[in-house]
């Protein structure tokens, strides 16, 4: 980090404050420390930047020769990767705004406390490393993965926060002295734990599919039989919600596939159809073939999906939120799992839906089915 300020006191102060200061970051093994280089004038700063560009410049605006803002302009034109933190006096807020508008990362008002400087430096250092990491990941085509992890960490932390909050309330006896006073928090905590377990199971499914490591056992199986067993699995939940499950045709529909894959597909579709349904509704499942495809259709009388949400449906961690779906628990991974499996079979999943009327998901496997399984299987 390069500190540019004409006051020696500020430079040595910054040096003193940051000498032993480190920033840690969950994705990094090492802590980030600061190596500090000093410059007394803008001209000297530019010379250093030319010779050995720093990661961060802490830049005072009021300098004896050229002004800080000109150094900032130089950096933007020549070394746009350098992050600039402007030091400005409280009186010149306008300048600070101007500086951020023309490319300074942020500003610290002067006089600042060691704490304020550390907070700003922590911020900018994290930004620097995130950006570096993002670029690297992007190069490796792993950015998507990183975003996935970001959302995943959110999805895993939320239930922990909720459960922790309830436990604290109990620990501090916030709503009473008896265990019965906490029946609701206990019930909610258990339900969050269950949801988290489901998320982990789905995550494992997804990882297996993506890694391609799981051996797929491809053989001729009966799709109708798989559908039957998926319907059976969902029967208890359907009964609870007064939803009728129906298998439309009984004739066997042979398909050349891995039975675990087919189970995951149908379990996901049928459980969605039950979960996002209305009391007294129905779910129908039908398997068969046309000249070009083997198909399996799951339709429901549920809450439906509006057009805007349809496009997001198969993305990871998408959960369509509306008043009707807010009490439904899910990992947000089910349909992205469905899509990934279908891709392995060079097959397609189609969805038609009308809000308030219901949805139909159709799995379409191209015929002849025996040519499947070329890639990754």
């Amino acid at each position, binding site marked *: 980090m390069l500190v540019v300020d004409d006051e020696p006191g500020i430079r040595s102060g910054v040096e003193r404050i940051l000498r032993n200061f480190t920033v840690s970051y*969950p994705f990094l093994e090492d802590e980030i420390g600061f190596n500090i280089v000093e410059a007394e004038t803008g001209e000297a700063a530019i010379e250093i930047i030319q010779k050995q560009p720093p990661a961060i410049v802490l830049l005072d605006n009021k300098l004896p020769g050229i002004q800080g803002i000109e150094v900032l302009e130089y950096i933007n034109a020549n070394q746009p990767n350098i992050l600039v933190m402007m030091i400005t006096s409280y009186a010149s807020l306008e300048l600070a705004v101007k500086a*951020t508008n023309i490319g300074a990362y942020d500003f610290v008002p002067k006089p600042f406390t060691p704490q304020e400087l550390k907070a700003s430096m922590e911020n900018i250092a994290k930004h620097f490393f995130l950006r570096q990491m993002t670029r690297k990941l992007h190069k490796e085509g792993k950015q998507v993965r990183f975003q996935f992890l970001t*959302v995943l960490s*959110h999805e895993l*932390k939320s239930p922990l*926060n909720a459960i*922790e*909050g309830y436990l604290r309330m109990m620990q501090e006896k916030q709503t009473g002295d008896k265990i019965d006073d906490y029946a609701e928090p206990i019930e*909610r905590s258990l339900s969050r734990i269950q949801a988290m377990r489901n998320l982990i199971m789905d995550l494992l499914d997804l990882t297996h599919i993506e890694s391609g490591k799981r051996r797929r056992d491809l053989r001729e199986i009966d799709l109708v039989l798989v559908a039957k067993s998926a319907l059976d699995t969902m029967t208890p939940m359907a009964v609870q919600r007064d939803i009728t499950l129906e298998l439309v045709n009984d004739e066997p529909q042979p398909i050349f596939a891995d039975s675990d894959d087919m189970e995951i597909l149908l379990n996901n579709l049928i459980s969605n159809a039950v979960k996002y349904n209305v009391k007294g509704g129905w779910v129908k499942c039908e398997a068969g073939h046309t000249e070009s495809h083997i198909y399996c259709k799951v339709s429901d009388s549920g809450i439906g999906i509006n057009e805007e949400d349809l496009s997001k449906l198969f993305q990871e961690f998408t959960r369509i*939120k509306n008043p009707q779906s807010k009490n439904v628990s899910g990992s947000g991974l089910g349909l992205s799992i469905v899509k990934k499996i279908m891709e392995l079979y060079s097959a397609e999943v189609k969805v038609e839906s009308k809000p308030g009327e219901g949805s139909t998901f159709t799995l379409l496997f191209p015929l002849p089915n025996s040519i499947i399984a070329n890639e990754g299987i």
Partner: protein
Amino acid sequence: MPTAKKTILIVDDDIDYLYQLRFHVEKMGFEVVTAESQREAEQLLSTMKPDLAILDLMMENEDSGFILSYKIKRKYPEIPIIIATAVAAETGMSFGISSEQERKWIKADLYLEKGIRPDQLHREIIKLLKL
């Protein structure tokens, strides 16, 4: 109690977190109004004006909290806003505070990591409301 009449809007799509936060904030002596989504909050804000807002960041959009914050500040610049998130700095990249344009309109008075202790939160609220 000078805090008695202040109204705090809490927006979070996690019903458990919302319940807990409401519990603690009410215990501090504030009036609490809640919403479970960005959309619901926007509707609420057309009919009421809170003294302070605590917003979750990721709701129906991954930057719902910012959008709400922007809209509240545009209508009532004087309302202090706290953005609370379970992700803290890790999301820095996914909603890109890095880009100039976004930074210009993101205006919250305080960012908090979820899991903050109620007494800490209370102090921050008092500071922001200048009580």
